[in-house]
């Protein structure tokens, strides 16, 4: 399926490049709708991968690439269920997220995340599945999960460790702070910086360059240089589910959802 238009995202294939636009108000929070449509995208990959050199993932929402998991949906869903079903439901969601992330990570074509604004939590995890992150200078990156008594649960830690030095990974995770695009580039998280509002333009130029090369060599090089840490990813699922089962997490989610604090996104 070379094009799709859904409630949370749409994609369009043209001239060897597929562009996926995340487009769910207000900030592409990853809940059941967006996840479901990402699963549809992943299922469609086989239908166009042979003719595809690159995939650009970007956001149509002004606030940014993605603010991460839909915590309001997660909380509402969690409190509606008894503990056992709640934990099983969260595990199912996380496993599905991992399957999507692994499929994008392993795609034979080059994947480029064009990031503007906020790229937090699950949003950063989605960007990390891509081979190249292009960020506009106003983009910000964060893993704020510790504030909720959790760790990133969509594959963020193993992928971050794969790509970056541990000192920065520890700082990012243990402080929950956000960093700007320049800092992210200096540590190697972001490959290319773009002017404000220009990330998609730069991503398209990068994709155009990528299309010039031999597809088999390109896919082989990608697979060789970017191993997927499957064992660690499975460990992350277990640790996330173990942490989520604690009452403190539901309390933290409740606090976030009901907060009138002007800055709930800050640590």
């Amino acid at each position, binding site marked *: 399926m070379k094009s799709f238009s859904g409630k949370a995202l749409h994609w369009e294939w043209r001239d060897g490049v597929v562009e996926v636009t995340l487009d769910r108000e207000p900030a592409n929070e990853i809940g059941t709708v967006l996840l479901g449509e990402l699963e549809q995208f992943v299922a469609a990959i086989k239908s166009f991968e042979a003719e595809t050199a690159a995939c650009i993932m970007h956001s149509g929402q002004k606030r*940014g690439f993605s603010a991460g998991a839909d915590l309001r949906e997660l909380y509402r869903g969690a409190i509606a269920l008894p503990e056992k079903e709640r934990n099983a439901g969260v595990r199912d969601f996380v496993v599905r997220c991992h399957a999507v992330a692994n499929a994008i990570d392993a795609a034979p074509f080059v994947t480029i995340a064009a990031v503007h604004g906020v790229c937090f939590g699950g949003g950063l995890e989605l960007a990390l599945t891509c081979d190249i992150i292009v960020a506009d*200078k*106003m983009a910000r990156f964060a893993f704020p999960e510790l504030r909720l008594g959790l760790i990133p649960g969509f594959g963020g830690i193993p992928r971050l460790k794969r790509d970056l030095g541990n000192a920065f990974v520890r700082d990012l995770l243990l402080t929950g*702070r956000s960093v*700007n695009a*320049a800092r992210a580039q200096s540590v190697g998280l972001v490959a290319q910086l773009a002017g404000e509002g220009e990330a998609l333009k730069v991503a398209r130029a990068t994709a155009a360059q990528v299309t010039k090369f031999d597809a088999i060599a390109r896919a082989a090089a990608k697979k060789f240089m970017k191993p997927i840490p499957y064992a660690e990813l499975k460990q992350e699922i277990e640790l996330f589910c173990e942490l989520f089962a604690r009452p403190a997490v539901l309390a933290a989610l409740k606090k976030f959802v009901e907060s009138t604090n*002007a800055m709930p996104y*800050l640590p």
Partner: protein
Amino acid sequence: MRTLDQTTQEVVDLASKHFNVPAGSLAPSDDFFKKLGINSLQALELLSRLENHFGIELPDYEVQGVSDFRTLAERIQSRL
């Protein structure tokens, strides 16, 4: 090296430009959330703007609880 007053004025000017309010309508002691009617994500946009302008990195936990321009400028000043 900038003085705190200079830094404060630059912060106020950047905020008024970023949020498209008339220059001079913001004061150093203003609560920027209430005065500008912004939310936390918009505050992070301002933080990016300030970091880019001053060439610094300002961890967001250092601005937790800060709501006026003057105090924000103090946090920035300590990173210059």
